[in-house]
């Protein structure tokens, strides 16, 4: 049984998180390839629906990455993002999906190291959680 | 005299009237009612029989009042608008009257949220004030609300509650005035611990001469413990317990606190009786009926006048 490789979507705000990701690259910091970034202007742009769709389509985990508290380039986008993530976590519980599969994180543009650390930890956490139950069912579905 | 009510007679006589309270049991246990009633007998002019108090199901006020009548006590038949629409209300009123019950207290009732039937529908077809109007209409015009004539209309001595302490305070006198306007004969106040505030209220009441239009019975409740004092202060809406009173209770050893509570109650009565417009006392010794005789005696309200 080879180890499970989760697919993780990270919605990164252009000003901080995405820049931090680039920074991690230029610092040659290694982090898991499981994390795929979708760039958004602000974490406040991340629609609960986008996160749901990511999970529905089979992502095993979703990160919403914005600027540090109080540093949002659009004032409060990261705060709103956090509220939505929290709301969504409740909804997921209702559906029977582990809330931990969605997480809001913040970092500044300079924090390449933080980006690498967070993505590594998150990937590990998701790996422990195992595949998105939706996929499990999905494959059973495909099988039948 | 508007009615045959003993309470009305005592009040009319100018004597300080005294009422007690009897909370019906949560079960078909006539003896419980009878025991409680027995303790009060001779020490009060009338006994309030509560109606699903604190929104918990109990033996109906109507039935319990009937037991009291059978013991030749004078129940103050309490009725809340929470549990009945006006059909049931009027039906119960004539029913009670036909059992010789001639004194009642009109209330809106605690919200079901506080009881063990939070899921219950919250009727409030009428509010307490409209209930007063209804009863007055039945008595004085002899008409049901629907307009039909009542054969042998119920001659009810109509009471209501008054809370001098609830907010907005400035509205409290007006609230009483409104009940008077609706036709209330007597009011029993929320239990009084903050006497200064009560006096302020009474001033307002006197300014408007309300004390001449309605009998005002001051409510008192002996506290069993410092814990109870604190609980009432912090938890019970619309009750105002001054800090010094809590301190005083807490100041004495646990085993002495009950006695302290009684003493405070009696001191209060002494102060209250000095206040112009106070026509009597409503002693709410919750689940502590046995103490009523002591209180009444030591407060010099014993013996009760025979009317």
């Amino acid at each position, binding site marked *: 049984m080879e180890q499970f490789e989760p697919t993780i979507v990270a919605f990164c705000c252009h000003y901080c998180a995405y820049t931090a*990701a680039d920074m991690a690259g230029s610092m040659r910091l290694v982090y898991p390839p499981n994390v795929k970034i979708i760039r958004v202007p602000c974490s406040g742009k991340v629609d609960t629906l986008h996160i749901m769709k990511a999970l529905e389509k089979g992502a095993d985990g979703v990160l919403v990455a914005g600027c540090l508290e109080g540093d949002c380039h659009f004032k409060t986008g990261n705060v709103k993002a956090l509220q939505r993530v929290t709301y969504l976590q409740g909804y997921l519980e209702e559906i029977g999906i582990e809330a931990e599969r969605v997480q809001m994180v913040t970092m500044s*543009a300079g924090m390449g190291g933080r980006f690498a650390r967070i993505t590594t930890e998150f990937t590990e956490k998701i790996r422990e959680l195992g595949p998105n139950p939706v996929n499990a069912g999905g494959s059973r579905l495909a099988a039948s | 005299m508007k009615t045959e009510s003993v309470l009305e007679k005592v009040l009319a006589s100018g004597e300080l009237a005294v009422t007690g309270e009897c909370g019906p049991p949560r079960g078909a246990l006539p003896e419980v009612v009878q025991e409680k009633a027995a303790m009060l007998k001779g020490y009060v002019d009338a006994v309030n029989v509560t109606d699903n108090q604190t929104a918990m199901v109990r033996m109906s006020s109507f039935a319990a009042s009937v037991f009291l009548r059978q013991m030749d006590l004078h129940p103050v038949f309490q009725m809340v608008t929470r549990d009945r629409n006006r059909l049931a209300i009027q039906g119960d009123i004539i029913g009670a009257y036909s059992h010789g019950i001639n004194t009642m207290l009109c209330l809106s009732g605690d919200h079901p949220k506080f009881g063990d039937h939070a899921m219950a529908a919250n009727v409030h077809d009428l509010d307490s004030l409209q209930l007063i109007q209804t009863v007055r209409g039945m008595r004085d015009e002899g008409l049901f609300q629907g307009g039909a004539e009542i054969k042998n209309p119920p001659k009810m001595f109509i009471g209501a509650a008054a809370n001098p302490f609830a907010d907005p305070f400035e509205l409290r006198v007006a609230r009483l005035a409104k009940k008077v306007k609706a036709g209330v004969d007597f009011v029993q106040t929320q239990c009084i611990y903050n006497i200064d505030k009560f006096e302020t209220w009474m001033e307002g009441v006197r300014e408007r001469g309300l004390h001449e239009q309605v009998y005002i019975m001051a409510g008192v409740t002996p506290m069993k413990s410092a814990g109870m004092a604190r609980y009432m202060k912090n938890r019970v809406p619309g009750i105002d317990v001054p800090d010094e009173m809590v301190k005083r209770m807490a100041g004495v050893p646990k085993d002495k606190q009950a006695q302290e509570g009684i003493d405070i109650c009696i001191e209060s009565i002494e102060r209250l009786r000095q206040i112009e417009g106070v026509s009597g006392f409503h002693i709410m010794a919750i689940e502590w009926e046995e103490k009523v005789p002591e209180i009444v005696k030591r407060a010099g309200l014993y013996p009760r006048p025979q009317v």
Partner: protein
Amino acid sequence: MPNQNNTVLVIGSGVGGMKAAMDLSEAGRDVVLIDQAASIGGLMTRLDRTFPTNNCDLCTIAPNLSENARDKHIEVLPLTQVSALQGQAGDFTATLTRAPRYIDMEKCTACGECHKAFPECVRFEPGLDHRAPTCMRYPQATPQAFSIDMEKCEDTAALVNACPAGAINPDDGERTEERQVGAVVLAIGAELFDPSGLENFGYGVYPDVVTGLEYERIMSASGPTGGELVRPSNGKPPQRVAWIQCVGSRGINREDVSYCSGVCCMYALKEAIVTKERFQDDIEATIFYMDMRTYGKDYELYYDRAKKTYGVRLERCRPHSIISDAASGQLTISYATDASSALTTEKFDMVVLSTGFRVTENACQLARVLGIELNEHNFARTQSFSPVATSRPGVYVCGVFESPKDIPETMMQASAAACLASKNLVPVAAGNGEAELPPERDVSGEEPRIGVFVCDCEQNIGGAVDVDALAAYAGKLPGVVLSQSAGHGCSREALEKIKAAIVEQNLNRVVIGGCSPRTHENLFQNTLREAGLNKYLVEMANIRDQDTWVHMNYPEMAMTKAKDLIRMAVAGVAQAQALKDNTLPMNKDVLVLGGGVSGMNAALELADQGHRVYLAEQAGHLGGMALAVRKTLEGDDVPSYMADLIEKVSQHALIEVITQAIVVDHFGMPGMYKTGFQIGPRMYYRQIEHGATVLATGATHNVPRAYSLGEHAAVTTQIELDSVIEDQPERVKDWGQLVMIQCVGSRVPENPNCSRICCQSAIKNALRALDLNPDMRVFILYRDMRTYGFSEDYYAEARRRGVIFVRYETDTPPEVTPDGDKVKIAFADPIIGRKLAVTADCLALSTGMAVNEEATEDLATIFHLNRSLDGSFLEEHIKLRPTDLSIPGFFVAGSAHAPKNIKECIAQAQAAASRVLSMLSKDTINLGATVARVDPEKCATCLVCVRACPYGVPFINEDRYSEIDPAKCHGCGTCAAECPAKAIELTRFEDAPIMARLEGLLERSA
């Protein structure tokens, strides 16, 4: 023919020349950019990677190269030199001489046939390769054309026929022409020292002894070995590589120069790191050095990384010689360390000589032609308070030809030179129109025809993934009609290819598999536009910064992820829509924060060039840190300079000085900002409207609690000592012993960076103290003496004059104990290996500068600016945009960026002014196309957007639906994310492309 007085002649097309040219052209100036080489680019294009990001230079610089070539304001003349310069500032006549290329560039297709046919007529490629046919110095050469060395050609006719395009013209001759220019910018750089003359290192004798630049070429994928690190002698990979620092620099030998070249320490560290990082981690890298001079912003951290993370070995010594060991074919280095005076010998496979800068004879010749003074080292002479002005008015200098320096500082000086040069020109005519572009093709309704171009970015991407395979994979994706590898996608050549492909294949969408859209999106957007497509029909898959750089050692991971990223981009771009940018009028006023040297200089330059400037200072008066400084290292009088500067600023009609001003709020967007202040003792509120902002908020004097500073009267800082020497000479005359301790509160965990200026200050004060009292004994306890550039001469003088320099290690710092009104300093002398104790009349601590934490934190928060780890403002690009901040319209100058001396502060202040001038030269602000759009049909007028918008833009209009003014929308997308009717879309980030990307990534392979 461009307006003569609007033209600047830029000589030298390295990064400096290009930067100056680009600043000027952005500001609507015309530029003649000449270079004696056959293509532009200069030295940087030959480097493999640059510190401290270890970026490939070409990736970083290539966009600029092609931008240059594309920019209609810039005329590029390769193979050209100046032979005369008449007239004066504002009205020069330059005589330009063009060497023959023998190729008609109009015709040349760069097919390379001539080379195949005639490999013998060669010009040597810099580096080691003896095969290169023609002088294409690097694959992205601009202009994209060969040049031929006719001397070496025997059969001209055959050569001519070899060209299918008939582009070769053997009769091409030297031509001269005259140009009217208003100013001249000298950016000719320097060459690197040729160590052939040094017998002891055997360069040119032993093939495995190479210079730093040659080593760069060996590592470079575009180099002779195609990016293979091998020993020139036997083509085998080396196991042990050594670097020898200061070869030809900081020396007293015949071949040596006395100054420090300033960059060698960093490039040696870089080469060592890259060697381990890119090739084998088990290659032993050893650097022999005298002082490790990592004094630039965050360079100290890089130094630490080399030691700690990569295990680069550092030996402090100056090796005596290299001899080749015939038997092993290895190289033996013999050296003596502090530890043992006896010679140690050690064997290496390769030795890299870190050679420094030398002014070319050509440069001296040019200086004579231009009539500018050179200093004792033949560099262009400039003054302490006028960093880029040469002795001839109207002629400015930047980069290495001014003094040895690295790329960021060259960039600053280049912008500074551009700023001063433009002062000699007529005020720029408003609204210099954009280049005329082909009409935009309407692609709406078309099925996607996507073209995918995958960059290899040399080893950066190509090193980790098989680019052709990746392109092949992309070719099969839905909607993709063309997919190919693009080499350096950002090179002019590749961009032309992409344009051609768009037209030929009738593409309507493009995906670039390359680097980060943050840095390159703009370039590719313009490319699409030039090819007649709307610029928003391109999407970049960031397979470099976010893939190959991260997974360079795991090719499979990298490849799989690259496929995912490309697939996402393809899916996303298929949904992309043509969009129009929104524009607003530009506010031409400027806000300068900070009334120190930097702030005042920036303000002055901007005001002199017609901009209204608000100069806001937190303190009650102008001046800043420099008020505490009395003399520069060169001995210039700082107070009188400051007095004069303050006078100029206060008197200037266009400058409004606002003191005791604290920034409290900030709104708006680049080109129309509003910043609120609380001013004066009564803190009244005032809002200032401005188009751009210069942050010159400075740093603070670092005052660490160490060595009983502030407790003992005899213990002081260099700054205080500076004043004591000026004001109380008699006190100094009585001193018997003066001790200085370096790096107090710098290069320590709490403040890891080097404060840069302390070594200079220490030397300065030591020399001045000795002037007053020659008999005094002066000790300087240091870790590394960092007297970079020409300040090295003063270091030498100090040694000559008997200042005793003793090195200490951080684990054995000096111990200071009070001794009456004196202090006793105990320290270990590594040379004699004994502990010494000195009782000093004065102990001067080199405490350097610290980030003004409070100020920078507040401002960073209010302006939403990024900060470096040390808390200073983080520049947009550490190498190429050292003065721009992450938010457009914000620029940084002086020690708010990093510790600097006064001269360097002035340079960056003028640079900031130049960047502002470029930005404000436009009359309109481009707001981009990322705005929220409401679909009236869907809108339920629920007010969610009205309440959610951080800027209160949406409103319900008369037609009963939410309206969002694109001119006011900041494009954050919060409203779109919250709209319960899904009636709002944020253009460029609509749901469709986002969902499509998810689809692309997550399509179930079941």
